[in-house]
């Protein structure tokens, strides 16, 4: 193993050490546990940065270390059957390592103040530790098995963090929902892994791709190859909250806000995108098309919902879903580097947005607490307003983030979003699916609109409650510093020196397209052709996207700042549409009424079936046996034992019997006579 990989291993395990220390000795450290966690993550960040630079300046394409974890000592299809696992660092991993450790570190820092006085302060930092560990695991692994392992661990830590305040039923519910919905996606992922393993007897990326490149196709059919790709993508659907499994992410906002920033904005949900990027070489054209459509539909649905939400975290949650859809769409159309870049830029500005909203909520909470007001929702933007002057740092950073997410030039968001849009245009150029770029541009406009709506309503204008605003203060340094760092990272110069095009920056240079492994007959457009076309579409995409974003921003200002258009009137006029969007397209209701209700119903029916029918048969058999036993017992005591007595009684009994027949009523006799006659008739005739 080369030394750099030892560093990678160190990066991976440092957060785990933090977790172990805090979970077992957290009580002892109490208030200091936050500092301990932050210190570990700081070290981790430094190592990641070092590794990043050494990888960037290295000539090696990939550093890889693989060893056999389990050897089954048998062969299948003349390949020895064993599970190889290991770690690897390529450019994508190096970047992701920095992204994860940086944001995790900032969130640790931010939480020092935000979570102060929490009942489970040390548990919180422990959970952050195990989350970071699992997320880093996803990033550094070189095979699907470990990927799945860490994938599930990420799910677990997300469950723990969402349910941090588990006394609240909604928090516990949200955690459970997140885990189960993710499990549904993971089920597909797992089936995909099964297909891959059964065919290739290996789960390392390089092994699989070289096998496919060598013409080895699952079950000899490209359809199965497409299916395998799509099933693995199912994992991404779950983790990255893509339609139709996006429902868990907004609920996950029940967790502490810094957690939302780390997990549900920057890293964990991006894992799905990362998975698609990793799987990219084995995705066929059909699979990519489906992925692109899933991304587009997700981006569209989430953006429409975000327009009407009032909870600041809900708005950000849906914008996250929408942006994730964007990234998936980007990968789906084949704009690999753009998708990955959007993942990175989005991580910075979305984490910033969440932390800023955390700062606002923190301040609001404080003020409300001071007033003794426990009814007003601290997260509702309608109760904010005019916070600009009170919280200048928060305002200015959030403005930068909003500009970035809206895709305004000179920001990082502009660079990546522009490339994705150019990619969609190129995609439609090659195979005529024009709906994808249309959705892409439309969603860009929507994004600009709802983000500025949030900004204007929350920060500008007048605050409605004089007393409350007097108590609102800017958050302490420990919270604003992370905001400023992230704001700085939202500018273009970190990714490309040319503010209008990323394609000549270091990112595009280092993050080259992976070699496509699938057979040429089912592969998407060849990379060179596609990149060429992107260049052609670049200017068009830039002009359109800037224009549309500007339009969205303008609309937001006219509606909410200058109030030239009445939002309320619109809302009234379009009541059904508004309700439909406000209730999130009724996805939750739909799932509750179908899947959840059906499962519970079937469960109840089966439980009844089990108790009443299956067990009933068993008990019935028991009763029958018992009855037979009783009868045979009676037979013994009455017939066999009483045979002697019976003989003696026969005369008496028959006499008594005959006496009852003698009713003295002639009609009864007639009946007997007829019956007897009929018996005789039967005997002789019949």
């Amino acid at each position: 193993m080369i030394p750099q990989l030892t560093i990678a291993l160190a990066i991976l395990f440092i957060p785990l050490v933090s977790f172990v220390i805090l979970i077992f000795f957290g009580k002892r450290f109490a208030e200091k546990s936050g500092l301990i966690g932050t210190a570990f993550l700081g070290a981790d960040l430094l190592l990641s940065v070092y590794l990043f630079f050494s990888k960037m300046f290295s000539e090696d394409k990939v550093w890889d270390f693989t060893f056999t974890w389990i050897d089954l000592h048998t062969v299948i299809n003349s390949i020895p059957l064993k599970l190889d696992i290991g770690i690897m660092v390529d450019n994508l991993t190096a970047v992701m390592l920095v992204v994860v450790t940086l944001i995790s570190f900032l969130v640790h820092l931010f939480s020092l103040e935000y979570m102060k006085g929490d009942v489970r302060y040390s548990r919180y930092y422990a959970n952050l530790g195990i989350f970071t560990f699992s997320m880093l695991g996803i990033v550094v692994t070189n095979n699907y098995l470990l990927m799945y392992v860490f994938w599930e661990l990420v799910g677990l830590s997300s469950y723990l963090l969402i349910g941090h305040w588990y006394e609240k039923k909604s928090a516990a519910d949200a955690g459970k929902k997140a885990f189960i919905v993710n499990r549904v996606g993971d089920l597909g992922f797992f089936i995909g892994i099964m297909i891959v393993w059964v065919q290739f007897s290996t789960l390392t990326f390089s092994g699989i791709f070289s096998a496919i490149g060598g013409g080895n196709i699952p079950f000899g059919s490209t359809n199965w190859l497409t299916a395998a790709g799509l099933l693995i993508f199912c994992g991404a659907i779950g983790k990255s909250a893509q339609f139709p499994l996006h429902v868990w992410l907004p609920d996950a906002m029940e967790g502490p806000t810094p957690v939302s920033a780390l997990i549900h904005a920057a890293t964990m949900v991006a894992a799905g995108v990362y998975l698609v990027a990793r799987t990219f070489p084995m995705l066929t054209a059909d699979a990519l098309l489906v992925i692109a459509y899933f991304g587009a539909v997700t981006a569209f649905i989430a953006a429409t919902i975000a327009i009407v939400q009032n909870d600041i975290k809900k708005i950000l949650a849906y914008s996250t879903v929408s942006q994730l859809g964007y990234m998936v769409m980007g990968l789906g159309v084949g704009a690999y580097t753009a998708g990955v870049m959007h993942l990175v830029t989005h991580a910075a500005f979305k984490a910033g947005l969440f932390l800023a909203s955390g700062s606002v909520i923190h301040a609001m909470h404080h003020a409300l607490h001071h007033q003794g007001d426990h009814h007003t929702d601290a997260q509702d933007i309608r109760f904010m307003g005019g916070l600009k002057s009170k919280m200048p740092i928060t305002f200015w950073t959030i403005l930068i983030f909003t500009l970035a997410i809206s895709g305004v030039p000179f920001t990082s968001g502009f660079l990546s979003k522009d490339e994705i849009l150019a990619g969609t245009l190129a995609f439609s150029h090659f195979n005529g699916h024009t709906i994808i770029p249309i959705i892409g541009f439309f969603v860009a406009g929507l994004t600009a609109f709802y983000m500025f709506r949030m900004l204007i309503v929350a920060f500008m204008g007048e605050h409605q409650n004089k007393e409350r605003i007097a108590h609102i203060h800017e958050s302490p340094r420990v919270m604003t510093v992370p905001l400023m760092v992230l704001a700085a990272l939202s500018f273009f110069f970190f990714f490309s020196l040319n503010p209008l095009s990323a394609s000549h920056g270091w990112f595009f240079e280092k993050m080259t397209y992976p070699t496509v492994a699938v057979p040429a007959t089912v592969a998407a457009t060849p990379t060179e052709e596609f990149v060429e076309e992107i260049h052609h579409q670049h200017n068009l995409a830039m002009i359109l996207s800037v224009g549309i974003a500007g339009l969205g921003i303008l609309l937001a200002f006219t509606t909410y700042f200058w109030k030239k258009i009445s939002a309320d009137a619109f809302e009234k006029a379009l009541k059904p549409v508004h309700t439909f969007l406000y209730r999130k397209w009724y996805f939750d209701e739909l799932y509750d009424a179908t899947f959840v209700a059906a499962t519970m119903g079937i469960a109840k029916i089966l439980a009844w079936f089990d108790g009443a029918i299956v067990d009933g048969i068993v008990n019935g058999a028991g009763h029958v046996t018992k009855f037979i036993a009783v009868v045979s017992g009676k037979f013994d005591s009455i017939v066999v034992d009483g045979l002697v007595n019976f003989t003696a009684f026969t005369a008496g009994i028959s006499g008594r019997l005959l006496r009852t027949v003698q009713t003295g009523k002639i009609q009864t006799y007639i009946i007997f006579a007829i019956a007897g006659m009929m018996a005789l008739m039967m005997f002789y005739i019949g």
Partner: protein
Amino acid sequence: MELKILNIGVLTWLTFLPVLGMIIVLLIPKEQKSAVRWTSLFFTVAQVVLAFMVFTKFDRSLAGVHDASTMQFSELFNWINVKSTGWFGSIKIDYYLGIDGISMPMVFLTAIISCIAVISSWGIEKSIKGYFALLLLLDTGMMGVFVSLDFFLFYIFWEIMLLPMYFLIGVWGGPRREYAAIKFFLYTLLGSVLLLLAMLALYFSVSVIDPASGEKIHTFNMLAMMNPANYDANSLLAGISTSWRYIAYIAMFIGFAIKVPIFPFHTWLPDAHVEAPTAISVILAGVLLKMGTYGLLRIAFPMFPDAAVHFAYPLAFLGFINIIYGALCAMAQKDFKKLIAYSSVSHMGIVILGIAAMNTQGMLGGMLQMFNHGTITAMLFLIVGVIYDRAHTRGLDDFGGLMNKMPNYSGVMSIAFFAAIGLPGLSGFISEAFSFLGAFQSFRWLTIASAFGIVLTAGYMLWTLQRVFLGTLPEKWNNLTDINSRELAMLIPLTIIVIILGIYPNLMLDVMNTSANSLVDFVKMNSTVSFGN
């Protein structure tokens, strides 16, 4: 490989140590309750130590299964020898013990679970002597089943185990204990009868040359029964894929299926579990259920390879039903113990699915799942027992918010729950994954359908976790105390096993691997061989 203590084989020690303990327990005056407890504990701990010795000395490269020369720690004595009795011929029954990769994990599991059962029975007050004596007898029965290589001996141990179980449920159980005990007893007895019939059919079909006299005699030797050459040409079970062979296989299968339990023979399980005291539930779920699948692997598959291959798909289908049906039934339960009982049904379905696949991964997955399910379900039942001891109720809806009240308990519980869900890093994952991977190779769509079980499992497990441990604590449980050190002493070893096997499953897989491969090859090879020709 041999290991002798005082010139007596280690397997005999393992098997009969608890009987020794039972005798001593019966000699202790009944006033000295703690002496009874400590004696039982001493003997079971000694058993664990022996099992661990065997585990470390076990040669991982020897296959066993059908080959007498690679059976380890084997002991072979003539036990019953009746000279020619008319048409019956001479009867020769051997005292034949030995272990291979299939039985080694089970031996280890039995020792550990028995020891933990003794610890968890510390609070038993009602006729304590009888209780521990029966528990130790049960231990012998279970251990004997896993080490005997003579079918007759196997059957004797199989029956020995029934009786203490009946009394332990029927005397120390809950309110409906008699019903549950009788149900369990009758159900298992039905299985035993079918097993006996199949055994006799095998006995009369197989004959070997007696080395002493040189004449051909019938034998109960399992390994002889696996060898196609030993079947008499015109006997009942000669030939290949004959209907008699299928009938014998099915009879044997039902005998084992009742123990597993496989749908629709599973209904004794929830009742027995609910009524049984905690320690007995632990043994029931931890060891007894494994006997069914162990029987399939040790007896049914190698002796009827043609039928095993022929009925592989139906078997896998039953596994599928077990997985889904068990999970759905569990979801609807309101009783904590019943829920765990149904989850056992679901998890044992994974074992069935894995071994039905008839390939190395599936077989290994199934066998590992047998061990892992033993430890995980034991933990779950202990967890229920802990809360039941304190609150005297098992209603899931009666609780809530225990996480704050009992943090250590909740920590252990979380590990058990997530292990049951199959979370990577804990032991349940790798065995489930292998079972599914193996099954996928053989039955593609069925496995995909079965995989939905993992979503359902997550559903009911998390729901339970939420109902019991999250939320707010009801007023009435304010005086609950956290788990004490005795309870921790029984849970911690299991927790450690669960975590270690989750990270490094090779520890167990190594032991089983050679045998599993050998079993798969043996079944595949003999499935096309005509018996007795």
